[in-house]
């Protein structure tokens, strides 16, 4: 995402914080060198830090495993490392990802996702091993590791994952050869360094990832029991098909700049006979060729491998086939090719799902919960076919493509929605509608003077036909709303609707800017922003006219919003003698600027929250260490005083509150940054 690639110091700070929080100090120190200095070679990192070569290599391996950095490959004389801002920032979304997947595909899929998040990229075989450990382990323990509580599983999967990367380095060629030496030891690192603080690392992951709900073993157990390898494979396949997981290829290690150079070069060779383009037409050809190659490359990442079903009904069968890799033998030739496939979470998809959630929330606020349910159903139907919110590499369109051809796959009818929703018998489809609509749909009774229906009807008893009509009314409300949540497309029996995400995303951005201004400056500030958005550049008198207020009443808010960077002012002298008194004073609002400003402030707000969490933790650090001692765990009541228990409880509360706010700030970041490409400045 080139948008995030324009990193700012504050984003660098935020990401360094996140990396440190989840992957420990060593990784964070290497990371911060790259954050501060940009693209660096191994030697340059060594010069810029006080770490020794071995430490740096360990750090880099962790970062590469998690796709927090790119590297330039083995081809050049020097390998360069560079931060992947999108993925780095993505750490803050770990908890959300699990939740989003659970809502859509159930707890088992969520469990697979959370493992993938914890492991970084993972060979399918290793993931399988984590769930169905080979027999070499002692029986009890392996069962435990495969199915139960997050804690022990994480330990196991960590080990497997890292071993995996050592084995599979041929497959994804994930790690540059200069780091080879570091690999065998990475398990120590990821698993916790062998140092005291290492033990806490997994629980730190929990902190950020598990949406502030620390442990919920009861729910996780049982529900997420993977019963067979085939079930696991089916889940993985489904998640790949729907775009939540992508397969890892070498190109994903290349930074956007390197990818561009590579494909640009390729396009020159193949589209322009190897001649560097000079004329406008040639340049155009090569640019298009480059974009086309980028898209093709990306499609390859999300192509669905064909899994061979081998009827592995039970564990023992599987083990024979896959040859118990952990036993020490190298990746066996008997294992099928998809076992060697390396997969990871697709960050672009997360933004799509977050968009769905936010749109539903918005509709709920504006039109009520039933209309929101209808919209949610529509959005989810489209979601599996929507790989990303906006396409950075789209064909430079001559005209907005929305006009002529909307892909038929992106059309939804009221009937589709009604069919899906009629499974939910508790849903009152008539709620939120004008009672007259109910009369119209059912042709029963009429609406009294007090707007009461004279023939009350149990909404769950409505026929599918009636439900469809009710859904249609909800959809019409969505269409009429100034956000234009849906757009009528055509009639094919039923009205077909589609969703113009780009337009809606712009309004969502505007909406958040207005929300922020409302919180800071009240409704007057919002009024000013809206007036300027509508009318463009205005002088004072014209501003007054649009807002129907007198000049002294708006001067204050113009000044405040200018200082806060939400509006811009400009002075145009009328005479050579640039007297302020006779100059023209204009004020205007630039959506893109306001957006960037708010995004920047939000990053900063997130950094402050993380800093506060660190501070609050520091205050109870001694107590936390004590509470985590093995003799204390489980016997807290016995070893800790009431005051200590209270302090721990308070710390938990404080942490939850802060994390919740952090995640809400992340929602705002998604709206501002991920749903729409850069806006053309007004």
């Amino acid at each position, binding site marked *: 995402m080139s948008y995030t690639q324009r990193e700012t110091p504050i984003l660098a700070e935020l990401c360094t914080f996140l990396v440190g929080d989840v992957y420990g100090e060593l990784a964070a120190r290497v990371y911060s060198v790259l954050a501060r200095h940009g693209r660096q070679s191994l030697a340059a990192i060594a010069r810029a830090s006080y770490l020794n070569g071995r430490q740096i290599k360990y750090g880099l391996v962790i970062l590469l495993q998690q796709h927090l950095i790119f590297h330039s490959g083995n081809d050049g004389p020097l390998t360069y490392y560079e931060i992947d801002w999108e993925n780095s920032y993505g750490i803050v979304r770990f908890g959300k990802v699990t939740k989003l997947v659970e809502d859509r595909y159930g707890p088992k899929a969520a469990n697979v996702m959370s493992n993938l998040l914890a492991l970084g990229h993972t060979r399918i075989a290793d993931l399988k091993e984590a769930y169905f450990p080979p027999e070499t382990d002692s029986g009890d323990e392996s069962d435990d590791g495969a199915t139960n509580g997050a804690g022990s599983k994480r330990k196991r999967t960590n080990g497997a994952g890292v071993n995996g990367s050592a084995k599979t380095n041929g497959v994804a060629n994930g790690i540059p050869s200069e780091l080879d030496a570091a690999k065998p030891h990475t398990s120590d690192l990821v698993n916790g360094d062998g140092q005291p603080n290492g033990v806490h690392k997994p629980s730190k992951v929990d902190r950020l990832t598990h949406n502030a709900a620390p442990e919920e073993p009861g729910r996780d157990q049982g529900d997420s029991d993977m019963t067979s390898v085939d079930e696991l494979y089916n889940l993985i396949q489904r998640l790949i098909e729907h775009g939540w997981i992508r397969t890892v290829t070498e190109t994903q290690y290349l930074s956007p700049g390197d990818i561009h150079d590579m494909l640009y070069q390729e396009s020159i060779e193949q589209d322009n006979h190897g001649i560097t383009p000079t004329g406008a037409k040639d340049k155009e050809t090569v640019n298009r060729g480059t974009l086309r190659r980028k898209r093709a490359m990306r499609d390859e990442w999300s192509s669905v491998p064909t899994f061979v079903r081998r009827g592995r009904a039970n564990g023992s069968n599987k083990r024979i086939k896959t040859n118990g890799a952990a036993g020490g033998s190298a990746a066996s030739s008997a294992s099928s090719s998809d076992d060697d496939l390396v997969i990871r979470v697709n960050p672009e998809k997360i933004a799509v799902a977050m968009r769905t959630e936010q749109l539903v929330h918005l509709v*709920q*606020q*504006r*039109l*009520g919960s039933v209309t929101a349910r209808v919209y949610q159903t529509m959005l989810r139907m489209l979601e599996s076919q929507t790989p990303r919110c906006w396409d950075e590499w789209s064909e430079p369109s001559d005209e907005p493509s929305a006009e002529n051809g909307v892909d038929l796959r992106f059309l939804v009818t009221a009937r589709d929605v009604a069919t899906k929703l009629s499974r939910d018998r*508790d849903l*009152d489809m*008539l709620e*939120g*509608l*004008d*009672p*007259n609509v109910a009369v119209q749909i059912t042709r029963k009774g009429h609406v009294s003077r007090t*707007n*009461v*229906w004279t023939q*009350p*009807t*149990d909404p769950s008893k409505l026929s599918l036909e009636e439900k469809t009509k009710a859904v249609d009314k909800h959809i019409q409300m969505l269409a009429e709303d*100034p956000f234009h949540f849906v757009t009528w497309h055509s009639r094919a029996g039923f009205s077909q609707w589609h969703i113009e995400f780009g337009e809606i995303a712009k309004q969502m951005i505007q909406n958040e800017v207005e*929300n*922020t201004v*409302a*919180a*800071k400056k009240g*409704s007057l500030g919002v*009024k000013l922003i*809206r*007036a300027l958005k*509508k009318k463009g550049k205005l002088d004072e*008198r*014209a501003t*007054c*006219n*649009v*807002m*129907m*207020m*007198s000049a002294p009443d708006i001067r204050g808010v113009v000044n405040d919003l200018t200082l806060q960077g939400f509006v811009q002012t400009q002075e145009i002298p009328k005479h050579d003698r640039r007297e302020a008194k006779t100059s023209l004073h204009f004020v205007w609002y630039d959506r893109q600027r306001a957006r960037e400003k708010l995004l920047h*402030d*939000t990053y*900063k*707000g997130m950094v*402050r*929250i993380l*800093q*506060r969490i660190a*501070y*609050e933790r520091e*205050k109870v650090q001694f107590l936390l260490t004590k509470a985590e001692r093995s003799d204390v765990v489980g016997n807290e009541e016995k070893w800790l005083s009431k005051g200590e228990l209270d302090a721990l409880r*308070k710390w938990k509360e*404080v942490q939850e*509150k*802060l994390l919740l*706010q*952090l995640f*809400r*700030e992340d*929602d*705002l970041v998604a709206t501002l940054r991920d749903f729409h490409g850069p806006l053309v400045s007004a």
Partner: protein
Amino acid sequence: MASAVASFPAPKDEPAVDADEVVSPAEALYDKCAQRPAGQIFFQRDLSNMQVAETITQLTSILQELCDRHLLKLMTLEGEPCWKLRSRSDADKLRRLTPDERLLYHHIDQVQAEGIWSKALRGRTNVTQQTLTKCLKSLESKDLVQSVMSVKFPNRKMYLLKHLKPSEDIAGGPWQSEGDFDVALIDTISGIVAQHIENETCIKVPGNWNDYEQAIAQKKAAVQGMRDMEDLAPAVKPYRPRRDPNTSRLVHRNAPQYPTAASVADWLNSKEILRGKFVREEDMEQLLEMMVLDNRLEKISGTNYRTVLTATDTKVYNGFADAPCGNCPVFDLCGDEGEISARTCVYFGQWLETESEEI
């Protein structure tokens, strides 16, 4: 002063007409005209019909005299000369004007309610800027002319006669008085308009509008010959707490006639709430658009408006604005460490109810 002197031949005529009580014919004519409704325009035939002057020649000289004394104003209407009366006090003031002032007055008089921009005035009269400024000031201080900021050209000062009401072009529509927005009026009218649009586009639905549980229970009770209602209750599974009939919710009306600026203007004019003021479509559009900015109305299409509804009562802004930093007065000064930082932050302390580091 030349013309003022010239207008004094009148007393000379007086002895010609006898008797002390008898007023001069000029005075007589003026009085007769003054009896007519204010603002009336007199043509020559009207004046000769008043039978003050005996001959046309005399009438002409009387009119000349009255004009000289600024009691009458000569105008033309459709090519025909006509006259209009001035009050004695106005005439008195006019007699005391300097020639420059009178010249400017004359030009200002000609544009009537449209007003004239000071620059244009200078162009027409060729006086120096200094004179212009001085004379206009003096005319204003004598209450003969007024200046109004133009609404159309916000930087232009427009001059017109004091007793005239500035045209809408320069003074703005019904929402303005004396060039400024009449906030009280706008508040009142927008409230009335908002209510009107709400009635048109929304419907108040009581909590029990579709009280089927009740209906079923009643039916069953009737069938079973009024057996114990308590027994029946569990049979109907309420999947949601019954809505209180006393609460109600506003929802968008199904397919209403969406109001437009024209329809609301018509409605408002017919109600005659704005006494004496007529609201044009443009005026109403201005008001409605402003109410859209205020988030009281929303636009459904190019010309249709409806009420903004929210389904939830609680107002949350967003993740940033609701956090302490989102509304922090020292946000820009706050750093990673030092006196103002997350560690020492009083706002976080209050929000979380924890201690912050003492500075």
